[in-house]
């Protein structure tokens, strides 16, 4: 039976991890994630989980410890944000290259400099090419549900890849929301017993991780890694189906909101999608066919499915809460690539919003929808990439 609670995103994720009760957890604090691992450390000291904590001196070491523990044959977790994720960077590639299903909530936060502790997506977007699966979450409920599903996706025998579960720093990690917890037994049953693939601690079958592979085979290994990523979409959908049976909550590769017959649409990740849905409703009530698409699986990116969902729109704005300086926003680049394959494509613009935790307000969404409405009528785009909510 579901239990209704009022908790923060961090608390919800820590509870999801407790319910899974993994073998090893690499722990290092960083705002705004700290509170999640602090809660998890309390579960350990209170004897509520049997997890072995590894307290390290940096996130680089935390990911290194996770890699060792995962190769040894354990179910392994950690969590991080921002600079911490950036410091893990080289180890992220090793975790995915070694095909180790480490599960890591990422509480999205801006990157220095200037120093900023608030929520934007620069950290996770910065490591989109590290070979990790990325699942994004709008609110505490989704962060909780995605964390539980991440174990089944990453640990699937056809996949064996690490997974990041992203949620917005402070906006979600520190705000209290109403949500539903599953029973411990339900979660345990859903994720199942951890299955090893090539455990180092199976001493009767010695093996080596991380060999030197040069020009003779490296290219082939990377090709194989891409192939595994291509299998992820189906696994994500299968796991979501099972999850829906248990929880009643439905998940896909992305969420669409009033998009079916929409002329104009926003593509937007995480918490700001919630705010934007209200704006969609407002435009709909005025007879304007507005809609929204919120990506959930960002790596691997579901190009064909998203193109299909957007193909009947006239104008689309991709909203990026991170930037590629001198380039378009990272989400825009993906949507643009997805739409390019269509014969008839909507006009496409890009807005950068909410950097360093700058509030995203319904009025911002309204401005964008008004502009999209003009573009849909005239077919004319003035500026492709612009910043919104920025002072002149």
């Amino acid at each position, binding site marked *: 039976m579901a239990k209704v609670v009022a908790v923060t995103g961090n608390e919800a994720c820590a509870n999801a991890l407790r319910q899974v009760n993994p073998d090893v957890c690499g722990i290092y604090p960083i705002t705004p994630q700290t509170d999640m691992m602090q809660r998890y450390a309390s579960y350990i000291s209170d004897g509520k989980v049997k997890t072995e904590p590894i307290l390290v001196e940096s996130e680089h070491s935390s990911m290194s410890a996770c890699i060792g523990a995962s190769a040894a044959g354990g179910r392994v977790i950690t969590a991080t944000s921002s600079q911490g994720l950036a410091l893990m960077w080289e180890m992220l590639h090793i975790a995915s*290259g*070694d*095909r*180790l299903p480490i599960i890591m909530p990422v509480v999205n936060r801006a990157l220095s400099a200037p120093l900023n502790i608030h929520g934007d997506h620069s950290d996770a977007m910065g490591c989109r090419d590290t070979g990790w699966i990325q699942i994004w979450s709008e609110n505490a409920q989704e962060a909780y549900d995605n964390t539980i599903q991440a174990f089944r996706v990453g640990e699937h025998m056809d996949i*064996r890849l690490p997974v990041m579960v992203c949620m917005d720093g402070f906006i979600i990690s520190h705000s209290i929301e109403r949500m539903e917890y599953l029973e411990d037994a339900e979660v345990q049953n859903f994720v199942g017993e951890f299955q090893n*693939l*090539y455990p180092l601690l199976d001493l009767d*079958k*010695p*093996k*080596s*991780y*991380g*060999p030197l*592979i040069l020009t*003779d*085979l490296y*290219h*082939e*290994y990377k*090709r*194989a890694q891409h*192939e*595994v990523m291509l299998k992820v979409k189906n696994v994500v959908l299968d796991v979501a189906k099972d999850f829906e049976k248990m929880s009643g909550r439905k998940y896909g590769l992305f969420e669409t909101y009033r998009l079916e017959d929409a002329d104009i649409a926003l593509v937007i990740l995480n918490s700001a999608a919630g705010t934007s849905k209200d704006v969609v409703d407002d435009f709909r009530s005025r007879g304007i066919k507005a809609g929204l698409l919120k990506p959930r699986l960002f790596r691997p990116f579901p190009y064909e499915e998203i193109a299909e969902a957007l193909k009947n729109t006239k104008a689309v704005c991709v909203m990026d809460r991170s930037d590629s300086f001198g380039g378009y926003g990272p989400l825009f680049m993906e949507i643009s690539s997805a739409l390019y394959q269509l014969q008839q494509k909507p006009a496409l613009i890009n807005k950068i919003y909410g950097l360093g935790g700058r509030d995203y307000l319904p009025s911002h969404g309204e401005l964008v929808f008004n502009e999209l409405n003009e573009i849909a009528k005239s077919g004319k785009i003035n500026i492709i990439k612009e910043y919104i909510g920025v002072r002149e």
Partner: protein
Amino acid sequence: MKQKGWKDLVPGSVILEGGSAVKFKTGSWRAYRPVWKEENCIQCLFCWIYCPDMSIKVKDGKRGEFDYDYCKGCGICALECPGKKGVKAIVMIEEGT
């Protein structure tokens, strides 16, 4: 030998057997070759202890020849060798000379 294609690989490039380094003949890396001068050898076995590639063969407690299949020519043995009365029992010579 037919080389492996990308569909034939073990996930995560894990090597699923022990002691597989024996298949990798590091001797081809060598630019300098250690040469044993038995007449100066005092059988201290320092070279055997220090060699990172187990390329000093020992039989019945006695130092034997180098294993040139694996000796990388690092020169550690030559550096550590005390020799007899200061005269080294291992000298490094350039390969191909």
